């Protein structure tokens, strides 16, 4: 469990970090909280020549408001996200999802940005980000761009962030007063989600406003468009939830085959919606 050797730099600014990345091309790896990267390096599934540690870059941390948006620095830890009053107020489902990630120790170091760029389909933060219609702020040699959450996740462990780019912040349109629920299903508590569902419903509890994100129902986190459309058209929660797995391609593994996952998605969607509506 010892990584292969690498060089290490810990820049103080985003620009320095970008320069370090530009220098090494795809032989460099960004280190956020390290909670996914270090296991990968220890198992020697990857052996970068250089590791660029973002932990000294103050501007990447913290949670603030910018008019109608909540802005969360990429290096903000899961623990901070889960316990932030701002996040609880304006993006409750994200706080709840962050509190279910791994365990307390991992949440003390793992970051929202790192989790999103890592893009594990079983990761818990993609689904709420999708349900909340967040924007991802990415900087690179060509400057800054904002990527809608729906375009951020490309494939298994693959996002729109280039090797020479950094995710700097997550901008979430304030969902003040919205109900939110994250229903995570695991066999034993320290597991990654077998399936999980994030649901948000506006403050009046009107199910037609519902937005639903799915965890581990395909190679990326997904929205549940059939469910959302059915609700918008006035279907009951149970009817709409029964359509949660439509268009998904869930994996089969030790914890369950795709048929079982498809079923779980419907049950968890119903439960998440009911809870988000205050039921």
């Amino acid at each position, binding site marked *: 469990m010892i990584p292969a*050797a690498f060089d290490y730099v810990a820049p103080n600014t985003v620009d320095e970090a970008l320069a370090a990345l530009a220098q090494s091309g795809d032989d460099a790896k960004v280190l956020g909280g390290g909670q996914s990267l270090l296991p990968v390096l220890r198992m020697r599934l990857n052996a970068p020549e250089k590791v660029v540690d973002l932990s000294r870059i103050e501007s990447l941390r913290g949670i603030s408001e910018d008019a109608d948006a909540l802005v969360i620095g990429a290096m903000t830890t899961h623990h901070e996200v889960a316990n932030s009053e701002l996040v609880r107020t304006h993006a409750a489902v994200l706080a709840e999802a962050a509190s279910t990630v791994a365990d307390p120790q991992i949440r003390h170091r793992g970051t929202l940005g790192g989790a999103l760029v890592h893009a594990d389909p079983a990761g818990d933060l993609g689904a709420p980000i999708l349900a909340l219609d967040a924007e991802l702020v990415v900087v690179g040699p060509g400057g800054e761009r904002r990527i809608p959450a729906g375009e951020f996740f490309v494939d298994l462990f693959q996002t729109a962030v280039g090797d020479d780019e950094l995710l700097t912040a997550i901008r979430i349109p304030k969902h003040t007063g919205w109900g939110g629920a994250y229903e995570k*299903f695991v*066999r034993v508590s*320290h597991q990654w989600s077998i399936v999980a569902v994030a649901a948000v419903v506006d403050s009046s509890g009107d199910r037609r406003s519902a937005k639903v994100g799915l965890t581990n129902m395909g190679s990326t986190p997904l929205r549940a468009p059939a469910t959302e459309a059915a609700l918008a058209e006035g279907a009951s929660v149970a009817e709409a939830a029964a359509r949660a797995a439509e268009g998904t391609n869930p994996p*089969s*593994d*030790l914890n*369950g085959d795709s048929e079982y996952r498809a079923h*779980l998605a419907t049950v968890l969607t119903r439960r998440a919606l009911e809870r988000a509506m205050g039921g």
Partner: protein
Amino acid sequence: MTVNPEVVEHLIEDSVDVDTSDDLGGREVGRARVRKEDYRLITGRTKWTDNIQLPGMLHLAMVRSPYAHARITSIDVSAAKTSSGVVAVLTGADVADEQGSLPTAWPIVPDQKAPPHPAIAVDHVAFAGEIVAVVAARSAAEARDAAELVDVDYEELPPVLDLKEAEKDTVLAHPDLGTNKSAFWQFDSAAAGTGGSVDEAIEAARRDGIVIEREYRQQRLIPAFMEPRSTVVDPTGEQFVMWSATQVPHILRLMLALTLGVPESKVRVIAPDVGGGFGGKLQVTPEEVITFLVARRVGKPCKWTETRSESLLSAHHGRDQWQRLTLAATKEGRVTALKVDLLADMGAYLGLVTPGVPILGAFMFNAIYKFPAYQFNCTNLFTNKTWTDAYRGAGRPEATYAIERLMDELAVEVGVDPLEIREMNWIKHEEFPFTSVCGLEYDSGNYEAATARAKELFGYDALRAEQKQRREAGDSVLLGIGVSTFTEMCGLAPSRVLGSLSYGAGGWETASIRMLPTGKVEVVTGTSPHGQGHETAWSQIVADRLGVPFEDVEVLHGDTQVSARGLDTYGSRSLVVGGEAVLLAADKVVEKAKPIAAHLLEANVDDVHFEKGHFRVKGTDHGISIGEVSLAVFSSHNLPDGVEPSLDADATFDPINFSFPHGTHLCAVEVDTETGKTSIRSYVSVDDIGNIVNPLIVEGQMHGGIVQGVAQALWEEAVYDDQGTLVSGSFVDYTLPTAADTISFVTDNTVSPSTTNTLGTKGVGEAGCIASTPAVVNAVVDAVRHLGIDDIRMPCTPERVWKAIQSAGAHAGEATEQAQEHFAPGEPNQDTTTAPATGDQS
């Protein structure tokens, strides 16, 4: 050397000053003593093997086969040899003439077949994870770096992974062996003269009674002790010194000598603090042999410490059986016969006691019941998977599971409560000692008392009422109640019995007691604790026997130079056998001290008696403490003529019989029928383990055992894919439960003292793990039985439970046919990811 007696006197505490304020009357045995071991463990001053650093020490990394079955065509170590920090790279060919073959101590039949088991494979690998080369380098990181550079060419061979396939002998795990069958072993009560003929009884029941036929799967498990295995060998000096995270330092030393041809006297083995074992460290491992060989070759100390993935892959696994069962009973539910046909997976090789594990279960299928006829047939088979061997309970959990599941099925068939069917068949307390259909004499027990107490603590009747009400209300979360009334045989083992089973060693245990001049006591034990608290429990025993303060007793163990003889710790034997040896040694010390005390007291020996640490002259208050006698012996200035100046004593105890703890475990589960997820709601265990030395330790053993058993029922399984790669190869996929998955238990005891040892103790190390698995699965099945489900394969994952409910729904009305499906030919039985690894209903 001069001794100032006053100084020493001052060090001798007055041993009558023991607290007598409670109902133990000052006795230590029975007291919930906080453990002596704890201080070093809670402050981080523990001596784990991996802590050891020696001058010039090298670090080893193993190169392992990624293939389950292959021929090694070539190995290129040139790049590894020139890698930074590397001192040596060895392959099987390099050590072929010195490595011998790893030992098996238990040939269960004279013609048992086994392949040679080299520590480093030479030209053939038989499971994924088998070692093909070893690198020694100056740092662990450099060793790992170089191991990646060893280039091995393999010619893949077809693996046999499935037990039922293995039985057909079409694909061979070891082509040179010509068969996958290692041994066939039978017990038949008619042949043994201990009971009737099973076939006749089954025939009779088919005509006019009940016959229940089932097939159960004991999935493969991984012991998963928390401290990864680690071994250090120092080849400098006159003896080779090996530190190892082992349960069996004494056996390891002997086996190293036998395997490598090194004189036993030139090897010293030390088991320092050891972080759990559960049978998983009851082994002589390739890695220990390799570390020894490399250290001997390079002349420098070497250390190997495994990673967790390596551990899950290559430390031996447990269980892995198919059990085909036929139970015959009268219409009223009185069992008339039980027939057991087992297929047992040895994995790729035979370990230390691999072939004997199913045999340890052979005597337990009849459990607490009075069966008139019994037959046990076991076929041991090789597959291309990690070798199996003892895992907590070893054979007995498998047997207990089968019979306790079957008794529930019988209860359903007869239409009575599961506890009622058990009571109808169990041995009544007034019938002890009772000779079972296997010919074992059960020493003592009271199943009625334990069951009554458990029912009361559990609120059995109220839960049954709630269960009914939930079903009627159509609740999506159903309640299930599971029962397990188990017994086991502990205290391995009477040497004669072991001999009759062809085991390679005896079952005695030894202890020495050394009285120090200051009155302190050193106890040397041949047991080798790794979490069980022997330092505390043995101190309690000795404190009582010698009348010295608990704190004055120091227990030494786990170093063959200190504890020269012993048979180590496994099979719930330590207290029952080793504790008895400690007690006998203490009594010998008193016997030795008595004439000396009489001499010092100027009294006749017959007038001196020993009580609470003091020798007293009858009818006077004239006395002397055992510590004072010890000091007198040390100075030896004034001893009676012909008396040896020593108060030390050795004792070895060979049990005359096993002990038979038992208990009633009751479990309530909630099954969410929408997701299939099972949660444990409450759990009560009432165990009869005879007299209790330390209630705190006993409770801890129960809790830990219960959770390991629950984990088999609900969570754990070693899964291979159809290439023979271990899929559950890390803690991400081998899902151990956490605190958040378990609950607080209610544990209690009834006491029927054992009649086979002085303390009247029975052994508790494996009880929880043996009892809880069937209790939980019975509860899960009970929750959904009304839907037409009579079995769910372990572990009862949410997916399996949900699928069982789905297919029961699809077959609504055909529920009674379900039982037949267990014998459907060609049913997938390999727990692979590609085969549908779901419940039997799928």
